[in-house]
């Protein structure tokens, strides 16, 4: 049996806007994925189609090899923490935990209450009375406690302060170490998740522009710094995904692997961090 979520040639249109354009991607088993994209890139649409919150116009979604669309068994392998809060407004936090256990038998009630305690989330409060940050915390706690085979977290740190964000990322790693399940972190805050994720899927304008390991992505990009003339000469015949100029100096971001030897004098080659690479890649597509 395949252990994965597979999207095959998925197309989703909203009127004249194509939110997902022939997307084919696989979230294989037991990894932490970063689904990265700018605002409006199609991240939420993609996750919503996986969980049948929206339906694709074309293509199909398979969970462990079986069609996911309106399939209870497939859908219950996935817990999605979305940006929208779908719990009843008047439901108390503790009741959200209890009811989720009814639907996800693997849900750990003790773990949920202990996390709520750690985050100082009052379990007697109603969902509607929670702040944006605490609403995110509630949804994250439920997602992490669900023990679903696939946990999809859409913008999980929305409204969280630095301490809570740090706590959350540590919990994700702890949970992954304990369960070895598949976690998809969808976010536009790349710098924060760069140390957490193993594989990266970058979506831009409804298309997947990169799908591979983080290490592979980082190995594919580098920067070259030097005088504008030298940099321009070096860049000829190479794929330049972006550049920055200051005075007579220029820094170009190159897509490809740097040569091991023969770097011209006056040029400095260096690696690029994930966020910088993401910015240059998505900008290059827009330009």
């Amino acid at each position: 049996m395949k252990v994965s979520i597979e999207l095959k040639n998925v197309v989703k249109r909203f009127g004249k806007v194509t939110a997902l354009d022939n997307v084919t991607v696989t979230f294989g088993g037991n990894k932490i994925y970063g689904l990265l994209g700018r605002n409006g890139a199609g991240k939420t649409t993609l996750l919503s189609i996986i969980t049948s919150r929206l339906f694709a116009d074309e293509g199909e979604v398979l969970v462990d090899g079986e069609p996911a669309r309106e399939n209870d068994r497939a859908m219950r392998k996935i817990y999605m923490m979305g940006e929208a809060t779908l719990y009843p407004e008047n439901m108390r936090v503790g009741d959200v935990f209890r009811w989720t256990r009814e639907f996800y038998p693997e849900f750990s009630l003790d773990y949920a209450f202990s996390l709520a305690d750690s985050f100082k989330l009052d379990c007697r409060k109603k969902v509607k009375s929670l702040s944006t940050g605490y609403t995110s915390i509630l949804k994250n706690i439920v997602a992490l406690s669900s023990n679903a085979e696939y946990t999809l977290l859409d913008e999980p740190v929305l409204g969280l302060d630095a301490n809570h964000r740090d706590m959350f990322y540590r919990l994700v790693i702890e949970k992954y170490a304990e369960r070895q399940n598949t976690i998809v972190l969808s976010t536009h805050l790349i710098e924060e998740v760069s140390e957490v994720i193993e594989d990266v899927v970058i979506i831009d304008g409804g298309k997947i522009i990169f799908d591979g390991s983080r290490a592979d992505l980082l190995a594919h990009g580098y920067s070259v710094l030097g005088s504008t003339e030298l940099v321009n000469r070096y860049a000829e015949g190479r794929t330049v995904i972006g550049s920055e100029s200051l005075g007579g100096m220029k820094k170009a971001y190159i897509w490809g692997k740097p040569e091991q030897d023969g770097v011209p004098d006056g040029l400095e080659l260096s690696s690029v961090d994930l966020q910088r690479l993401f910015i240059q890649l998505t900008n290059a597509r827009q330009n």
Partner: protein
Amino acid sequence: MYLKPVVKYRLCDYKRAIITFYIIIIAIMIGFFSITISYDTATASFAGIEMIGMNFIFIVSLTSFKEPFRMLIQNGISRKTILLGQIIWTICVSAIMSVVDKVICLVGSIGSSISGRFIVGSLLDQVYPSKFLPEPGRIPAHLMAIAFSFCLYTAVAALGYFITLLYYRMNTPMKVAVSISVPCFLFIGLPLIDNMTNGGVSYFFDRVSQLIFGVDGSNGPLSVMAFALVCSALLCGLSWLLIKKAPVKN
């Protein structure tokens, strides 16, 4: 199928509302009974208690889509299971309310025997002459009353659910158009047409209702019960068409 938690969630969701409704009904009945006992000139009549129940279940059904739908989708339940859960919920709630209504009527009839000015009767007794009904006070009569209210409750609940689902799927201009045009047609258009056709519309509805209620034939309440069940099934089918591609709206 993952129906059990869905039905459990739905029943728990409205448990308090149903209990509160019956507490109010019983409190009102006790209040009026006390008045008829205390004052010689006072009379109180609770004829057709099911009508209040029908209003209640209709309103409850009108509010029973959006919030449960969002909660159940959040918890990985398919739309098909959500609708099946709603059907089972409707059957359970209709059955419970029908039995409770009958019990209230029976207890009320004890009150009637104490004070002749305190009258409690079921809708069935009000609508149909005795020739259509089993012998009063016997088990078949009680079962008939329960089955009669059950069928009506089911149809009304299915209608409420269908209407709320229809509104959920409509965009705002459609909602406005329907909200204005339907009442206009019912309260202005139909009377106008009735006037222009010398009571043709009234005659038509009179004939249809006689046919549905079975008062001019030999079937009596069985006719309306069958009609209610067919309507329930049709409305469930239409609800499926509406829910099967319903998106999650914010």
